[in-house]
């Protein structure tokens, strides 16, 4: 296989400390010139290595997932690959043009029309004018914004904006594509379109780097996954193995998650998450759930803007990244009911004897279908907990203590009848 990306001994150092992240004032520099001879070089400045000694080789046509906790160096690596910043040491070779779907809408200007923005943003992202000319109709058709293409994008809804932006980025002809969690935009139909587009890109044999926190998507799409931890590649291999390792370390994030600062909590102007936790019927927060006992996932959130009929949603997946199920709040009292402002607590109850043992992760979202379908808050990996099946003899495993396959473990009713031993076998329904 030919190489598409070769990363050799790449490290990146950032300076932190001081009053400003990087820039200084002219006054400080002049002051520094005066005091410099009297000082040693380290004036309270610290350095951190965002990446240290990364070596990776990615072949043409490979689809490689990159995972890691926040601050593990994923975005620094992508910035180096997209040439926004240079590595402190080491070098990178790219065979082919590289484009990114990391920041849809880069270069969009609110005062320009859809048409003008397609050209501008396309050029900024590295497309040729002739290329954009050729793709223009396709981009517009993909975005479904034919009627608004001569309108300033500042009059667009946020959904329209993202659709246009994604359409431009998705029509790259670049040989290497970096993708972030862009698929979480737009309505369901548009998301499907995006997935189809990604599929098409893959079929063209282009190289894709896919960065995501969505383990199910990572395992579904990528064969090879690279795990970054504290600036180092700690695992590079088969997707399921890497994901399992990542999740077992992320399980420490725990059974309860709280956001104290409303500004940075997941959500938008309509709703903000406050707390997510796994609880027992008695109200205790638990990280380890007995397979036989029902337990609840409790969401506490602030509704900041009235008039939206909100639907809390939780998706569950296991440590292999398999999505188990998702549940939407369909209870009658708030269904299709615009909510007044306030702090709400919604709890979904998972019955005992449903899930198999293992590590489980819950993605939490809050959607609305009225006045429009929208995703207000989405927090992947909001809670993590462990389901345990102690061999007490009362659960679905009975007296068996070995490993049991499957993602669910319902305690089902068995019925057995007995007859005299007959000459022929007679099959009974269970």
């Amino acid at each position, binding site marked *: 296989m030919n190489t598409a990306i070769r990363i050799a001994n790449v490290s990146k150092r950032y300076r932190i400390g001081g009053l400003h992240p990087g*820039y200084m004032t002219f006054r400080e520099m002049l002051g520094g010139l005066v005091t410099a001879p009297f000082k040693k070089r380290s004036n309270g400045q610290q350095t951190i290595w965002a990446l240290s000694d990364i070596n990776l080789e990615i072949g043409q046509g490979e689809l490689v997932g990159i995972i890691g906790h926040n601050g593990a160096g994923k975005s620094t690596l992508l910035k180096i690959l997209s040439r926004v910043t*240079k590595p402190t040491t*080491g070098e990178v070779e790219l065979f082919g043009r590289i484009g990114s779907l990391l920041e849809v809408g880069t270069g969009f200007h609110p005062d320009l029309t859809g048409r003008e923005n397609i050209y501008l943003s396309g050029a900024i992202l590295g497309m040729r004018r002739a290329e954009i000319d*050729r793709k223009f109709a396709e981009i517009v058709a993909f975005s479904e914004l034919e009627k608004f293409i001569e309108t300033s994008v500042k009059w667009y809804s946020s959904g329209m904006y993202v659709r246009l932006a994604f359409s431009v980025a998705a029509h790259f002809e670049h040989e290497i594509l970096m993708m972030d969690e862009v698929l979480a935009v737009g309505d369901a139909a548009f998301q499907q379109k995006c997935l189809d587009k990604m599929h098409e890109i893959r079929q063209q*044999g*282009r190289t894709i780097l896919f960065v995501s926190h969505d383990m199910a998507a990572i395992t579904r799409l990528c064969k090879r996954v690279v795990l970054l931890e504290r600036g180092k590649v700690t695992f590079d291999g088969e997707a399921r193995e890497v994901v399992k390792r990542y999740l077992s370390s992320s399980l420490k994030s725990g059974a309860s998650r709280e956001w104290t600062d409303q500004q940075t909590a997941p959500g938008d102007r309509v709703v903000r998450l406050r707390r997510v936790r796994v609880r027992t019927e008695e109200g205790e927060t638990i990280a380890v759930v007995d397979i036989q006992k029902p337990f609840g996932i409790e969401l506490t959130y602030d509704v900041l803007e009235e008039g939206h009929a909100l639907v809390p949603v939780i998706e569950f997946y296991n440590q292999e990244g398999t999505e188990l199920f998702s549940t939407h709040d369909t209870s009658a009292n708030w269904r299709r009911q615009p909510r007044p402002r306030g702090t709400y607590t919604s709890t979904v109850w998972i019955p005992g004897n449903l899930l198999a043992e293992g590590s489980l992760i819950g993605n939490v979202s809050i959607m609305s279908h009225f006045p429009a379908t929208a995703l207000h808050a989405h927090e992947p990996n909001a809670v993590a907990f462990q389901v345990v099946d102690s061999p007490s003899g009362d659960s679905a495993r009975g007296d068996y203590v070995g490993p049991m396959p499957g993602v669910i473990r319902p305690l089902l009713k068995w019925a057995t009848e007995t007859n005299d031993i007959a000459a022929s076998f007679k099959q009974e329904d269970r």
Partner: protein
Amino acid sequence: MDLETSKAVSPKLAQATSADPVLLPDSDLSNGAEIGSRDRHTLIQSEESGLQLDLGELWYYRELLYFLTLRDIKVRYKQTVMGLAWVIIQPLTTMLIFTLVFNRFVRLDAGALPYPLFALSGLLLWLFFANAVTNSTHSLVSNANLITKVYFPRMFIPAASVGAGLVDLAVAFLLLAALCIYYGVTLTLNLLLVPLFIILMALLALGVGLLSAAMTVKYRDLRHALPFIIQLWMFASPVIYPASVVPVQWKWLLLINPIAGIIEGFRACLTGGSFAWLQVSIAAAITVTILVCSGYIFRRFEHTFADVV
């Protein structure tokens, strides 16, 4: 479906990939767009690697300069209610104020040109320079969202500010033309040299703009100092007063100030008088020197912008 199956499904694709080691079998790609070596192979070196002006890269991205300039122009004319009118009003009012001061209160001999025309001809070029430098200085910081997200030669951001200024200048020339007709200025062959002085002024603005843009990213308070520097520079240049009023012992200052050479040369185009070729040559040499030095300095710091801005 994984990639191997997808290749198996379309054997044509797989074939094309193996036939061409670097390019992908996207037929669209190989048809329309030109594929240069830059498309095929990029080497990203570390911060310590050497310094290059890399004009080839600038040429490769040339279309982007066009689109960024177009953006600057369109946005400016869309955001202001008066739009184009501002481009006329700014030099017009400045010209009227100076005419009032230097033609009514203080009698100043402006030589061959009537004072309003004299002042306007200097002000048009000066305001173009001042606005271009100011806009390019702020351009990197105000385009931080671009700089931190995509790569392209950052030089184009301040360059687009200068380019947009040229369009303003072209519009403002209508005012100058009107005034020339009003005062019955005779057309001479000297007018053919107008583009030369505009190009020199644009190159000088680009040179100074690049330098101050790069430095503003690093030293933020420079932008507060800039208006003073620019104002000082204006009074040090024969924009609103003729060079003839400068005392002999200070004349050398006009020689090393490229603005003086450019504006005087531009005025000579209108009057039909003779050009001070020595002064113009020195101005041109200084302009080119500033531009090349600024270009190198800008390139030197370019890669740090995303980390700092």
